[in-house]
């Protein structure tokens, strides 16, 4: 784990002290709301529908057991005993009081955490593959890169007032689990012909009201050039990006309106200068960062009773089939702990669950936890011989749901249950889908499926890139849900296509049942996933399933 330096610690402490004074001045009337709003947003504090919301950064989704325990303590002491893990690998507290927030920030500082740059038109928390440092398919751990960018971008004087927010995602694996093509800048660690590692730099991706797939601006960037190149891209955007219209201010619009060639030329011209001026990263700091992500001391031991436990216990077996991913070290597995128990709120964890996860990370997982953008918790390094005991312990806090990658493993934004921007609810739609498909016994039958739900066009719930995407809108004062089909969140990122008119709130689940029963009827066999079948057959049979009345009318 990366440890704060004295500089980091002093910086966070000073920022917290400044914010405490700002809160005092807001309450005594010295600051108006217009003056205070940018200050609170710089510290991750939003005012939502029913209460304030504090968004805390979990850099590249990595947490220590100690940090997770502190998140649980904060949830109990100043919130309502739970937290919500987000699609940007952060945690949000939904019920803080303004007067308590400075104390919450100090408590976060005690465990090297903060809420800086989790909002505002700055470089946001850098996200990464949640299996970083563990995945069998990984070329290189993306977290030293993400940490380097975090240090460089935090309080970067040139990039505090960008045209709009700016998100960077990094993956070190060819199988992209970090959605790099939907980021302002996506970085993929790649190997060139001579075996050196560097970055494929992708620019101008994003979801939201104008979804766009990122484009490669540099197929191979040597590692030492990373920071001056990022500086060149972002300063080019800072000048070329539009400030006249909030909805056209993201870099994806800058790239789209100018064209990738013109934008690339401008970046390269700027890069000549930034590279010349760049003195290089202090090799000592770089070595320290890399050292802090060194893999733990994996033990070389037999699998113990892992296979016997699988044979003996069908519940354990089912869990191992859905919730484990191949680890690079022999005898180890990556465990994804589902925060999607059927009927639960996607991404929510109670303080008891957080404490249990912290204890289990200490006992079985080298003290490490990850938050995935799919709103689950990952124990990246668990020896297979420990899995039966781990599974038994997870059951005590309703954390053993065997549904990773299935119909109930849904991404859902907070929607109109919490968010001031939302146009409809997301959470209860996710809850009903999860409980319904389990109740009718189709979850295992349907197999691999990504449903992603957003409660407004800003697309925090990634609906464009769900195999089935659901977008909640307000149509003449009534909640209405549009369905998109065929989205893909991986290295072959694809935006889903809108199937047709939206559905009323209580018609979403019946529509999905028609859709998925049609898929089961049409697939070649169980190995053909919904997405594969959609790609083979096209949208038509699925549209017919969604809109049977129209299909009948057309045929008449």
């Amino acid at each position, binding site marked *: 784990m990366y440890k704060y330096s004295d500089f980091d610690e002093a910086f966070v402490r000073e920022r917290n002290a400044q914010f405490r004074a700002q809160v005092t001045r807001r309450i005594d009337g010295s600051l108006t709301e217009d003056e205070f709003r940018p200050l609170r947003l710089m510290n991750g504090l939003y005012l939502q529908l029913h209460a304030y919301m504090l968004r805390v950064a979990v850099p590249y989704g990595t947490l220590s057991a100690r940090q997770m325990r502190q998140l649980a303590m904060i949830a109990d002491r100043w919130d309502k005993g739970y937290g919500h893990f987000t699609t940007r690998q952060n945690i949000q507290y939904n019920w803080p009081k303004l*007067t308590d927030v400075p104390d919450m920030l100090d408590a976060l500082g005690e465990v090297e955490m903060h809420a800086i740059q989790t909002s505002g038109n700055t470089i946001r928390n850098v996200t990464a593959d949640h299996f970083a440092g563990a995945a069998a398919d990984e070329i290189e751990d993306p977290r030293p890169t993400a940490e380097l960018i975090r240090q460089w971008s935090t309080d970067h004087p040139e990039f505090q007032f960008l045209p709009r927010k700016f998100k960077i995602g990094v993956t070190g694996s060819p199988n992209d689990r970090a959605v790099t093509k939907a980021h302002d800048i996506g970085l993929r660690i790649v190997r060139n012909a001579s075996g050196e590692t560097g970055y494929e730099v992708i620019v101008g991706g994003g979801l939201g009201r104008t979804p766009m797939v990122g484009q490669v601006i540099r197929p191979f960037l040597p590692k030492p050039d990373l920071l001056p190149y990022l500086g060149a891209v972002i300063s080019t955007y800072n000048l070329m990006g539009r400030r006249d219209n909030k909805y056209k201010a993201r870099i994806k619009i800058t790239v789209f309106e100018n064209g990738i060639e013109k934008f690339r030329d401008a970046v390269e011209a700027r890069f000549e200068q930034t590279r010349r001026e760049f003195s290089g990263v202090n090799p000592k700091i770089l070595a320290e960062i890399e050292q802090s992500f060194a893999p733990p001391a994996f033990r070389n031991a037999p699998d113990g009773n892992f296979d016997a436990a699988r044979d003996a216990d069908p519940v354990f077996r089912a869990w191992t089939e859905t919730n484990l991913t191949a680890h690079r070290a022999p005898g180890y597995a990556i465990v994804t702990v589902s925060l999607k128990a059927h009927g639960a709120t996607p991404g929510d964890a109670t303080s008891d669950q957080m404490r249990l996860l912290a204890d289990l990370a200490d006992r079985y997982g080298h003290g490490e936890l990850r938050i995935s953008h799919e709103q689950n918790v990952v124990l990246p390094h668990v020896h297979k011989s420990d899995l039966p005991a781990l599974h038994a312990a997870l059951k005590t806090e309703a954390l053993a749901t065997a549904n990773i990658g299935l119909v109930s493993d849904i991404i859902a934004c907070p929607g109109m249950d919490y968010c001031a921007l939302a146009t409809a609810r997301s959470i209860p739609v996710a809850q009903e889908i999860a409980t319904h498909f389990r109740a009718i016994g189709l979850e295992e039958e349907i197999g691999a499926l990504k449903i992603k739900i957003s409660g407004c066009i800003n697309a925090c719930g990634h609906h464009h890139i769900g195999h089935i995407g659901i977008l909640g809108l307000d149509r003449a004062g009534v909640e209405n849900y549009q369905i998109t089909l065929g989205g893909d969140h991986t290295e072959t990122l694809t935006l889903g296509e809108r199937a047709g008119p939206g559905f009323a709130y209580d018609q979403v689940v019946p529509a999905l049942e028609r859709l998925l029963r049609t898929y089961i009827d049409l697939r070649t066999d169980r190995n053909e996933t919904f997405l594969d079948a959609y790609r083979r057959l096209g949208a038509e049979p699925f549209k017919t399933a969604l809109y049977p009345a129209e299909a009948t009318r057309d045929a008449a």
Partner: protein
Amino acid sequence: MSRAYTPKVVTANALIEGDVVYLTADDRWTRDHAEAELIEDEAHAQLRLLKAGHQRNIVVGAYLADARRGPNGPEPIHFREAFRTRGPSNYAHGKQEGAARV
């Protein structure tokens, strides 16, 4: 002919807790929509909103929301405003939590 004015309430969030509040006819901030002043005149609504805007150390983000007369006082019209009178639908938190305790 001008369209009939849809009655309004003045609503905002409390500065400290962030909880949803409504302006009453006797110039208090209540947490109960039914206690809000139902404003049926457009000019009066603007005056009341102006007044709310001056109370910047008590509330944040005051605006006018559509409402209608109900048997127990004003009722919200839009679903967003209905949610604001209760709290989220996934947990009994927010106003509904207080209501359950009474």
